[in-house]
């Protein structure tokens, strides 16, 4: 089996983010690392974040930093990754790509203990960069300019110290003196040798300054001093005239200012009132903002509270350090303060947000200061505060993030054209059930009812130079309605259009006149109001029209074509006539190319299943240039230029190719390349869009022409980062559409459907899925679907949180407390249902209050996804938490389908995994599946992490025991068990009489149940210890699994062994008693292996498009969704493996990781072709594309077609 792996949704979580001006000038941009993807974001004028560029780097990004050479206008990006190399990137504005400026190898690849890449620090003046590892190694590179002002990088200077763990590094701002880097270090050498533990107790973290002597080209340890043992993060303090220099050391509960030759200035971090005393407060992200006259720091704690830290200083002397409560936002991985007054917060889990500063925290608030620090016998006196709603920040945009995907199921529950992906996302109060549908999100701007059922709509400008459209013209069966676009949209009658007839086309002609084509003629409305009518000869009517700004072709009934051109005076002149053999089905003329008089091609579709290209050149006017036969009569035609590759702005070195698109009556969109000179058609591709013949319309997307196809659902064909994408829109069926541009909406679409006129815009271009989110209460763990009743039942559990009642009580208390300024309307605890913004302390924003770690809260929820209503919510009591769920039909059929839920009470992971009790609950469905009722609860002796129905009984993985239960009146009855599993059972799948059991650490075990002997036995297992995180049954002999380290693998029982077991009357039992290699007698073989680079949390076998091939779809912790499609032909395997091989050689990944090594990070990659790499082919320079295509005996166009085809098989 060969698989094609394709990422459908890039990771949505963010590991780290930096801000700066990467394209140069004053524009503020953000570079974010999403694991294996590097993105460049920019907030636009409306404060919406736009993704400018997204590059897959085939490696794990661990750290990012930006620097600017003195006097330069532009920031460079330094990337620390798992490649064992330091990479410096520059954003190339013209080509919209990252250029690799430098790549220096310093060590082995992989995320290793002593190979740098984990930490990056920059000299604030941009003269040097330090790259550090978790332990021992630190390298310093000197950055400079050569004579041509290009960036140069030196060979590395070592600042190693062995037996030393590094917690954080940062640059120290010391103006133009020698660059200094600071590091928090901990020496473990003595603790390792001392059995009494005294050395370990006395182990002390140090703050060490490393000085880079630019004159001697040498790094030396300049200064080292003890620092608080809770220190975890360093922040640079401005120096060199702007501030006192030195560093802020963030430690557990404290922030300390330190500098060489300066006494420590320490202040406590204020604590939330409700925080348990045993918990510390740790700073997890920090940002510094510097203006001409002042600077401040924003530090965020692990609970989400942001504090503003200011230093009161007198030149180099810091007199006071103040920590003032600023605001609370969800916990971030990075904070970026943009000079334009925005704060970009990349959330650890859940949606990221862009905030605007309303104030910078100058108002009085809870504040801790170094001068009021009180030391008592129990330590320093804490300062308390109560979180309040946002005062200084206001959220203006958010970016959706699926991180983490906890579980996922694909099913067509809503009976739409394509299945929906139901995914459980997020954590704690920010968790949600998200329903993903392939397609782009649409935001509707206006819907207005029309007096009749319209048949068509157009928009026209009055002048070619106008920015916005002037009229919307709507045609009905026997009338035409003209609406003028202004402050409001209203009907007008002075436009000159004939309103007593239906229209066939309305457009701008020449520079400033309008044209209306109606069945009996052409009405040409000049700018000064003069009207010229051209009438059809005899009783013939116009049936079809094709036009651009200077050319018009009409088709009369019977098949006569008449061609008009606009002459120098703006008159519409008849040029040529041509008789076709039969009626014309559709027409289109390509737009007039820049600087030309006319477009050369006319496409004519006929009912005899052909499309002809006719010339419009004066010398061979109306000559047929080429002919293409298609599978069904064409309904609509459209010429669209597609740039095959990202090139310069002018596109000179990467000429665009002209595509002819045809919507056929059988619902297929047919696309073919038109030779710009000869008009020959080649390279045809077709794709089924829906049940209705697609009608094609030209609209504008990001300033470029794009194609809207209206079939049974609308599709958009557009160019995104060099790729042509054809994506469905999540919107209802439309009849007719036109582009729409007005003051309020620069790039919209106006469309008619039914008797309504709709205006909408298309958002978040480039995304594969759009989502509907339903908020949940706790971290969702697993869920089951009930396809018949269309209900979702899920279990949610959280550790270290208070139950809903306790939280409500605490909240009431807090609001009733006197002196608290907030008006105390107690929050509706059903925050799952009514998430309103007025809520003073929404948990979504502030997180749940922390309780002791041994406490659990959990609930079982029945949810109707159509209405998004929760019909039943059972909160588990008494520290019990649910971990597994399944529906089961017991064979006695008395109760019908029942729900089994596995729970544990008082579960603890540290110091040793333990629990007080564990149960399996059995629930009965009531009220048509909307409500659950507990039938009984059976205590078991291990945590039931997996449940599954098997032959009318319930199979449960209870710790390391696989047990079969039957339903009793008062409890479940044990029927059979097998205790031979190594660790803990986390997954059970069944097929016929086979049971596929996934163990937490030891991969899969194949079991069989013998009914006559009532015995469960393991007949095959895996030889590799795999820490299983997800499992999916594929076929009788094959299962797919994913491990904790980010690999997906398939194992298969060899055919002969499988046959032998099936034929053996004892079912391999005799052999089983012998065993092999401390395990089962038979071993499964690994047939597929692939490193995804992300922890896969769920696997599902499904097809995302009707009639498409079934693939394995996976969801990951970082919030990405991918698919693995089995190849159906050997030719395709050969083609793609060669393409992959060439791309590996010719186009190595951006951040220096070897592609093959990355995909084989833990086990050698086997029989999987990386579609993400293959899809980088269009981004290659044209000559390289040709070179690779030549090697494969194909043209670049054919390769693109192949890539498109295989993508279309998946989604």
């Amino acid at each position, binding site marked *: 089996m060969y698989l094609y792996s394709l990422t459908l949704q890039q990771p949505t979580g963010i590991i780290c983010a930096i801000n700066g001006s990467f394209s140069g000038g004053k524009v503020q941009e953000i570079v974010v690392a999403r694991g294996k993807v590097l993105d460049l974001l920019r907030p636009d004028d409306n404060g919406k974040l736009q993704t400018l560029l997204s590059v897959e780097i085939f490696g794990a990004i661990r750290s990012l930093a930006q620097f600017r050479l003195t006097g330069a206008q532009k920031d460079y990006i330094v990337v620390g990754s*798992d490649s064992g190399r330091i990479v410096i990137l520059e954003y190339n504005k013209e080509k919209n790509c990252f250029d690799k400026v430098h790549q220096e190898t310093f060590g082995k690849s992989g995320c290793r*203990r002593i190979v740098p890449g984990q930490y990056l620090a920059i000299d604030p003046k941009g003269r040097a960069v330090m790259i550090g590892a978790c332990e021992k190694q630190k390298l310093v590179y000197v950055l400079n300019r050569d004579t041509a002002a290009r960036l140069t990088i030196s060979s590395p200077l070592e600042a190693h110290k062995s037996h030393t*763990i590094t*917690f954080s590094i940062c640059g120290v701002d010391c103006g133009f003196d020698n660059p200094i880097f600071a590091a928090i270090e901990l020496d473990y050498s003595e603790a390792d040798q001392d*059995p009494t533990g005294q050395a*370990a107790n006395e*182990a002390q973290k140090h703050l060490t300054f490393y000085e880079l002597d630019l004159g001697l080209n040498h790094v030396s340890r300049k200064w080292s001093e003890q620092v608080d043992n809770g220190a975890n993060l360093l922040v640079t303090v401005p120096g060199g005239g702007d501030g006192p220099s030195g560093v802020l050391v963030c430690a557990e509960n404290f922030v300390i200012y330190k500098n060489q030759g300066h006494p420590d200035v320490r202040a406590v971090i204020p604590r939330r009132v409700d925080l348990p005393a045993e918990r510390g407060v740790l700073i997890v992200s920090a940002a510094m903002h510097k203006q001409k006259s002042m600077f401040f720091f924003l530090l965020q704690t692990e609970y989400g509270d942001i504090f503003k830290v200011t230093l009161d200083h007198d030149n180099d002397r810091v007199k006071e350090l103040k920590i003032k409560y600023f605001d609370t936002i969800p916990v971030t991985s990075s904070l970026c303060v943009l000079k334009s007054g925005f704060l970009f917060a990349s959330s*650890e889990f859940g949606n990221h947000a862009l905030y605007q500063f309303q104030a910078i925290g100058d108002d009085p608030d809870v504040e801790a200061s170094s001068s009021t620090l009180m030391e008592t016998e129990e330590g320093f006196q804490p300062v308390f505060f109560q979180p309040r709603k946002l005062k200084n920040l206001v959220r203006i945009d958010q970016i959706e993030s699926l991180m983490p995907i906890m579980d996922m199921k694909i099913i067509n529950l809503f009976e739409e054209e394509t299945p929906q992906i139901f995914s459980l996302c997020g954590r704690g109060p920010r968790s949600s059930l998200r329903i993903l549908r392939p397609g782009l999100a649409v935001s509707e701007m206006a819907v207005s009812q029309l007096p009749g059922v319209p048949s068509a709509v157009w928009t026209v400008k009055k002048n070619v130079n106008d920015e916005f459209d002037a009229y919307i013209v709507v045609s009905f069966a026997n009338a035409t309605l003209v609406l003028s676009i202004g402050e409001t949209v209203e009907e007008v009658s002075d436009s000159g259009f004939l309103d007593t007839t239906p229209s066939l086309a309305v457009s701008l002609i020449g520079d400033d006149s309008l044209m209306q084509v109606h069945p009996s003629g052409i009405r040409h409305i000049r700018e000064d109001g003069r009207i010229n009518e051209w009438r059809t000869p005899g009783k013939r009517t116009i049936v079809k029209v094709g036009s651009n700004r200077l050319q018009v072709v009409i088709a009369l009934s019977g098949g006569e074509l008449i061609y008009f051109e606009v002459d120098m005076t703006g008159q519409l002149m008849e040029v040529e006539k041509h008789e076709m053999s039969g009626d014309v089905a559709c027409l289109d003329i390509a737009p007039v190319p820049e600087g030309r008089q006319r477009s050369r091609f006319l496409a004519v579709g006929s009912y005899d299943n052909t499309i002809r290209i006719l010339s419009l050149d004066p010398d061979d006017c109306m000559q047929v240039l080429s002919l293409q036969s298609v599978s069904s009569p064409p309904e609509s035609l459209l010429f669209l230029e597609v740039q095959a590759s990202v090139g310069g702005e002018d596109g000179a070195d990467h000429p665009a190719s002209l595509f002819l698109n045809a919507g056929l009556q059988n619902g297929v969109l047919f696309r073919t390349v038109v030779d710009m000179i000869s008009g020959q058609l080649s390279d045809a591709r077709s794709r089924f869009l829906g049940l209705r013949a697609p009608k094609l319309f030209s609209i504008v997307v990001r300033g470029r022409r794009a194609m809207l196809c209206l079939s049974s659902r609308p599709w958009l064909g557009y160019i995104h980062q060099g790729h042509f994408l054809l994506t469905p829109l999540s919107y209802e069926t439309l009849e007719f559409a036109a582009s729409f541009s007005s003051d309020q909406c620069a790039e919209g679409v106006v469309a008619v459907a039914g008797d309504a006129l709709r205006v909408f815009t298309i958002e978040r271009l480039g995304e594969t899925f759009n989502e509907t989110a339903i908020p949940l209460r706790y971290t969702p763990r697993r869920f089951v679907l009930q396809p018949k009743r269309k209900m979702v039942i899920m279990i949610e559990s959280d550790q270290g949180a208070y139950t809903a009642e306790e939280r409500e009580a605490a909240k009431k208390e807090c609001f009733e407390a006197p002196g608290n300024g907030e008006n105390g309307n107690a929050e509706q605890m059903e925050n799952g249902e009514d998430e309103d913004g007025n809520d003073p302390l929404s948990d979504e924003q502030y997180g749940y209050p922390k309780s002791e770690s041994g406490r659990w809260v959990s609930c079982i929820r029945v949810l109707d996804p159509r209405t998004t209503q929760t019909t039943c919510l059972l909160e588990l009591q008494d520290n019990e938490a649910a971990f597994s769920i399944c529906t089961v039909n017991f064979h006695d059929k008395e109760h019908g389908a029942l729900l089994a839920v596995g729970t544990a009470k008082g579960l603890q992971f540290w110091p040793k995994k333990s629990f007080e009790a564990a149960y399996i609950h059995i629930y009965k469905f009531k009220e048509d599946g909307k409500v659950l009722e507990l039938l009984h609860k059976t205590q078991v002796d291990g945590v039931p992490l997996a449940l599954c129905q098997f032959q009318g009984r319930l199979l449960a993985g209870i710790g390391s025991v696989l047990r079969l239960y039957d339903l009793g009146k008062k409890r479940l009855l044990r029927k059979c068990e097998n205790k031979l599993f190594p660790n803990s059972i986390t997954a059970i799948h069944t097929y016929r009489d086979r049971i596929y059991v996934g163990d937490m650490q030891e991969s899969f075990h194949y079991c069989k149940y013998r009914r006559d002997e009532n015995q469960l036995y393991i007949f095959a297992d895996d030889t590799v210890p795999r820490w299983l995180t997800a499992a999916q049954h594929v076929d009788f002999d094959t299962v797919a699994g994913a491990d904790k380290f980010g690999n997906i693998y398939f194992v298969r029982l060899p055919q002969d062994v499988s046959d032998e077991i099936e034929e053996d009357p004892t079912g391999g039992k005799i052999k089983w008693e012998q065993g092999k290699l401390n395990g089962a007698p038979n071993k499964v073989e690994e047939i597929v292996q692939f490193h995804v680079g992300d922890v896969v949390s769920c696997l599902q076998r499904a097809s995302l498009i009707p009639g498409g091939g079934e693939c394995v779809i996976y969801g990951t912790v970082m919030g990405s969704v991918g698919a693995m499609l089995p190849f159906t032909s050997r030719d395709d395997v050969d083609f793609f493996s060669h393409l992959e091989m060439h791309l590996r050689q010719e186009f190595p990944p951006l951040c220096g990781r070897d592609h093959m090594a990355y995909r084989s990070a833990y086990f050698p990659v086997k029989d999987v072709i990386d579609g993400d790499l293959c899809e980088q082919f269009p981004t290659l320079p044209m000559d390289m594309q040709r070179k690779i295509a030549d090697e494969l005996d194909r043209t670049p166009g054919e390769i693109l077609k192949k890539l498109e085809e295989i993508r279309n098989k998946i989604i």
Partner: protein
Amino acid sequence: MQASDRFNINSQLEHLQAKYVGTGHADLTRFEWAVNIQRDSYASYVGHYPMLAYFAIAENESIGRERYNFMQKMLLPCGLPPEREDD
């Protein structure tokens, strides 16, 4: 050191041990080996962000806190070293 010594297997091994932390030797104790493996594991957890996130979900802590905890655990990953038998 003589020139010939540089190519002798022992000095090569010493060089490796000095350069790459965790390179074993014949007298490595079970404890030392375990400590080394644990430190490598923690460093790997810290280096692979998705893994940190995975742990953070399991323990319901922030990712920053998980990272700090793992780094802290690198000090004494396997508890105190055993009493050394003086030879």
